[in-house]
């Protein structure tokens, strides 16, 4: 189902659509000065990337991206924005020099990466195995991998989440009464 039928390049059109969505939203994130607008741009970027995953045949991953990332992480970020909202109107304007330096670094990196990666992809440095896109696979393989090959990271991540939640909850808890200045 991936690349569409011969004739109308459905796959290509979808790719360019999602890619443009992701790229432009990312630029929006980078260039916008309003934190709310940034968050919205990020949402679009995440959704577009999910679309790309779908296009690549990774439906489960696309779902995870939408549910966990767009639905979880982004909501967290929006919460953060709202909780610190006393400054919503305040624009933290970076200095012009800093923006120039950042854009310079970005431009150098982008040029370097595009040239380098295209050259590498062209020369087959990333392996020239036949396209595996038409190989369909069910989600249960992913589940088996999680409990098989990737059991150790799976377990570690559970402990990690426990510890991290405790830490985050501790820090985010409001200050208690009578808690004086210390240290």
């Amino acid at each position, binding site marked *: 189902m991936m690349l569409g039928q011969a004739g109308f390049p459905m*796959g*290509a059109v979808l790719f360019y659509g999602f*890619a443009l969505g*992701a*790229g432009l939203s*990312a*630029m929006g*994130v*980078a260039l916008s000065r309003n*934190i709310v607008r*940034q*968050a919205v741009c*990020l949402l679009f*970027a*995440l959704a577009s*990337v999910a679309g790309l995953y779908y296009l*690549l*045949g*990774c439906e*489960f*991953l696309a779902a*995870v*991206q939408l549910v*966990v990332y767009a639905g979880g*992480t982004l909501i*967290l*970020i929006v*919460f*953060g*924005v709202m909780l610190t909202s*006393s*400054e919503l109107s305040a624009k*933290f*304007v*970076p200095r012009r020099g800093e923006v120039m330096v*950042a854009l310079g*670094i*970005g431009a150098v990196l*982008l040029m370097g*990466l*595009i040239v380098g*990666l295209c050259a590498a*992809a*062209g020369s*087959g440095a*990333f*392996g*020239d*195995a036949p*396209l*595996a*896109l038409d*190989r369909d*696979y069910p989600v249960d393989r*992913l589940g088996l991998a999680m409990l098989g*090959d*990737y059991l150790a990271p799976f377990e570690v991540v559970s402990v990690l989440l426990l510890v*991290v*939640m405790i830490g985050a909850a501790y820090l*985010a808890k409001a200050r208690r009464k009578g808690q004086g200045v210390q240290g």
Partner: protein
Amino acid sequence: MVMGVMEIGLAHYLVLGAVLLVCGLVTILTKRNAIGILIGVELVLNAANINLVAFNRYSHGVSEGGGVALAGQVFAIFVIVLAAAEAAVALSIFLNFYNNFTSVDVEKAKELRG
């Protein structure tokens, strides 16, 4: 692999990844709002994920035995999970910072220096 404009190949995804990466880095560099910086980090992680999935599907989708290899996708899933955890920790720290400085402007954080 022929790289026609209409034939979507690995390089297309890699370039998109690079764009996301650079956008993320520029975000990190220019934002003074701590949450803005965190958003930049999320972009960089997404760039990495696009790479991982694209590599998995285009180059390394077949294991030695001929079965399906999923390393890249699994990696991407873990990255998403850890990004969520990292965001939670980071936001709690921002909140705490906000409590102490009544701001999330990272420029305020320069009492420690030298």
